[in-house]
């Protein structure tokens, strides 16, 4: 026990000794804080708004200028969620249960009507806001990643307000698995679409639309929605897999 801790500290100090000179070297060559824009960012800021009719340059970078990176990022996310499901199901089995957790000799607390009412007010508003953030990704702060995380949290509100059983009935995991898969397929399809028109992978050849309109940006809104679907499905699936860990499936549950 003791030698293991000593070994751990020794290895950590060794790793820090190797990394520290690199960190110091980089730190000494950092650009001054708040000085000039770096060349890449300055170029993007100067040209992308007029080229793409997208006012949110950050979204334009994610879904257009560096679209291939985002495709990779989306698949890192999908792979992590798949790995999570494989790990947890590997220990638990494929059975899933719609029934809330039950411990012997312990009453389920009744659901508070105030909470349920509040959630029924907040849920539609949260879903509407997340769809708004998704649709306006290329115009104002937001985009598919943010909207997907918000939509997944909005669906989790249902669990808070109406309990596990209703949550599982309204948001069936199989639908969310399909949503995640369709979103991932959609991201690739958005990349392949320009190739059908004779352009390169993910090349933004669609009509760019009007500035400050929902259709502005060509491929950007399509990619945005595909990523939003994948992220929503992925987060809800992760939540379902973790929640399944807490319950014991009975015979005949689905």
């Amino acid at each position, binding site marked *: 026990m003791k030698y293991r801790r000593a070994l751990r500290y020794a290895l950590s100090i060794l790793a820090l000794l190797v990394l520290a000179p690199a960190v110091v070297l980089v730190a000494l060559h950092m650009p001054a804080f708040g000085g000039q824009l*770096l060349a890449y*960012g300055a170029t993007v800021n100067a040209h992308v*708004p007029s080229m793409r009719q997208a006012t949110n340059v950050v979204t334009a970078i994610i879904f257009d200028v560096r679209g291939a990176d985002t495709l990779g990022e989306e698949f890192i996310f999908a792979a992590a969620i798949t790995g999570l499901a494989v790990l947890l199901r590997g220990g638990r089995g494929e059975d899933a249960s719609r029934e809330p957790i039950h411990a012997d000799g312990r009453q389920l607390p009744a659901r508070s009507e105030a909470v349920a009412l509040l959630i029924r007010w907040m849920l539609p508003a949260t879903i509407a806001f997340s769809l708004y953030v998704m649709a306006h990704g290329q115009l104002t702060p937001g985009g598919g*990643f943010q909207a997907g995380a918000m939509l997944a949290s909005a669906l989790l509100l249902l669990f808070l307000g109406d309990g596990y059983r209703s949550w599982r009935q309204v948001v069936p995991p199989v639908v969310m698995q399909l949503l995640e898969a369709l979103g991932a397929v959609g991201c690739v399809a958005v990349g392949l679409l320009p190739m059908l028109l004779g352009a390169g992978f993910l090349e933004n050849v669609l009509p760019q639309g009007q500035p400050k309109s929902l259709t502005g940006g060509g491929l950007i809104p399509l990619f945005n929605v595909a990523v939003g679907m994948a992220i929503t499905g992925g987060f809800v699936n992760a939540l379902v897999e973790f929640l399944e*860990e807490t319950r014991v499936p009975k015979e005949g549950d689905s």
Partner: protein
Amino acid sequence: MLLRLLPWLAAAWLMAIGIYGMITSRHYVHLIGCLSVVQSGTYVVLLAIGFVWHAGPPIFYDHPPGTPAVDPVMQALVLTDVVVGAAVSALLLALALQLHKRRQTLDPEELEPVP
């Protein structure tokens, strides 16, 4: 001068306490939390690189393109960082759960090598 150093100091502090926590951690869930703290340090570094004094956000909706704006590339990198971080934390927590099921401990120093 201090204001110019503050972002770097904040990032260095976040990374240092995160790495210290990871090295001395006695619980894997705590270790995953420390990893998230280190990652927060990288957000501060990236945003500080992109910052420009007296510049607006790189979103030209209510101010015309051409007005000074901070670096959008760094902000896009931070978004990537956040998404990958969330996914990796979820995966690591699943690993910790499986570990606890099989070995009944989450202390890195109590784990025996698999025979």
